[in-house]
Each structure stands twice: as C-alpha cells, then as structure tokens.
C-alpha cells in the first residue's frame, strides 16, 4: 500500500476491506483451550477413580493438583503460539473471565488443604467452570457453548446427590459435557469458517466496493 491521492470510492473500499479483515470470527479462537482442560480433567478424574478403586487409598486425590501444574503452563504456551498480534474487545473479556475463574478455582483448591470438608469441592468447581463456559458462550454468541454451559450449571447439582467414588466419575462426565464437546464443536466451526473464508476470497477477489456501501 502506497501513499497516493484517494477518491471517495477508494476511501470507502479501504475502510470496508480493513473492517472486514478484523471481523472474521476473531473471537472464536477454536476450542484448543477447552480441549486442553477438558481432556486433562477427564484423564485425571478417571486416573483417580481407578487408582482409588484399585488401592483404596484416598490420598490419590492429590493428583487433582496435576491439573493446574500441567494445565497452566500448557495454556500459556498455547496462547503465545496463537498470538495474532491483536487484542479484540471480546478476546479481552473472555480472557478476563477465565483469569477470574482460574483464580477462584485455585483459591478453592488451596483452601482444601486447610479444611478438607469446608465445601463439596467437586460441586463448587463444576458450578464455577460451568458459569465460565456459559458466560463465554454468551459473549461469543455461540449456541453450543451456551447450551453446554447452562446444561453444566443444572447438572452440577447432581454432584450433591452422589457421593464418594461416584462423584469423581460424574465429574469426569462433566469434563466431556462442558469442555470436550464444546471444544470440538468450536474447532469444527473455526475450520469451516476458515475454508469458507478461503473460498470467499477466491470467489469475491477484490470485490470490496459492495461491502463499502454498508459503512
């Protein structure tokens, strides 16, 4: 792009083309982070369930701390890798939601070290994460994530109806409902949006004047 005198049509073309560049589902960054936490949760929950069943030793529950130890560094790595050099308003909102959820989840887990019976941790965690999923879904206006979040909120109360080993198994089920399924749906949506964009670019190559009329 060089310096040259513009006419009004060219100005409109530039504005519409640039705005369009920033509007291609930027906020829907795929489901990578959902899948990371979902599969981590599922694997850790199932590992704990089977280890307790085999050994009868409840100290195995310490393994829950493997989630933040593995999850946070991996998430930071993933976020750095997909850095597009921009921050959108929605991206910042979503990021802040999950920072808040993460801090609350961390403190709730740590308080377990002080008083193990203070609250039903798996219920509280499921509720907290599902609230995060539901808000994120509402912010990005993506129905599968909204449904997963609110379904998860309702199902969190199942945690209060089951006890002991079953709680761990139900929590593994939650990982699938609230993180893994929406994660795969988000990835699929991103893939389809990507191929549609590529197709669209070829089809509408350079035809930006039409979009200009909407500015």
């Amino acid at each position, binding site marked *: *792009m*060089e*310096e*040259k005198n*513009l006419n*009004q049509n*060219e*100005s*409109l073309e*530039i*504005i519409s*083309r*640039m*705005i369009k*560049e*920033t*509007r291609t589902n930027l906020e829907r960054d795929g489901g990578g982070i959902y899948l990371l936490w979902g599969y981590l949760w599922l694997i850790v929950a199932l590992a704990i369930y089977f280890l307790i069943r085999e050994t009868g030793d409840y100290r195995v529950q310490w393994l829950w701390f493997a989630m933040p130890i593995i999850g946070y560094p991996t998430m930071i790595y993933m976020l*750095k890798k997909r*850095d*597009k*050099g*921009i*921050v*959108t*308003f929605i*991206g*910042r909102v979503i990021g802040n939601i999950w920072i808040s959820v993460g801090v609350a989840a961390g403190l709730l887990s740590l308080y377990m070290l002080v008083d193990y019976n203070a609250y039903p941790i798996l219920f509280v965690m499921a509720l907290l994460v599902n609230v995060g999923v539901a808000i994120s879904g509402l912010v990005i206006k993506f129905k599968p994530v909204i449904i997963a979040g609110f379904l998860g909120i309702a199902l969190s109360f199942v945690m209060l109806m089951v006890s002991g080993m079953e709680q761990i198994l139900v929590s593994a089920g939650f990982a699938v409902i609230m993180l893994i399924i929406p994660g795969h749906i988000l990835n699929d949506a991103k893939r389809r949006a990507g191929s549609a964009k590529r197709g669209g670019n070829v089809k509408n190559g350079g035809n930006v004047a039409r979009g200009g009329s909407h*500015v």
Partner: protein
Amino acid sequence: MLKTEVMLLEEVAMFKELDPLLHSQLRLAVISLLASLEEADFVYLREKTSSTAGNLSVQLEKLSEAGYIEVEKGYSGKRPRTTCRITETGRKAFEDYVEALKSYF
C-alpha cells in the same frame, strides 16, 4: 451568475471537508483496522495493509503526532514489539471522516 454555476456552488457547499490526515491510503487503512480492535501490533498492521515497514513507520508516526493513535514500544519475550491503539481523538476523527464521506454519495 448562471443558474448552473449556482447549483454547482450549492452542491460543493454540501460536501464536507475530508480530514487530510486520514485521506491517505495507508493512514486510513491503519485507522480503520484500529477502530475495530483494542490493539494491534506493527507486524499485524504491516501484513493487513500490505505496506513496507518503512512507510508504515512514517505513517504511524504522523498519526501518533496528531494524537490519533498511541504507540507503545515493548518486548514480546526477547523480540521487540510495537503495539498501536486508537485514541478517543482518533476514533472521533475517523467517525467524522466517515460522516464527511457520506456527503459525497
């Protein structure tokens, strides 16, 4: 004065003046991008505007001097990173530019 001349003058008076700072291909592209984003780095702006680093630097400097954008130089890991944000003045100027542009159509 001829009737046609009067009509022409009236027509010209209807057109609002376009901000000369934004009425440039690259500066307008940068402001249009930043108007839709919270912030963008230099590499993103260079790629999306298909401009050269030198030219983009000059135009960013002009926009920054006018108070239309904020430029922050920092680091991303070990690599230097320049981040740009539109200011309220810049946003207002862009809105006025689009409003003025409408009078030509």
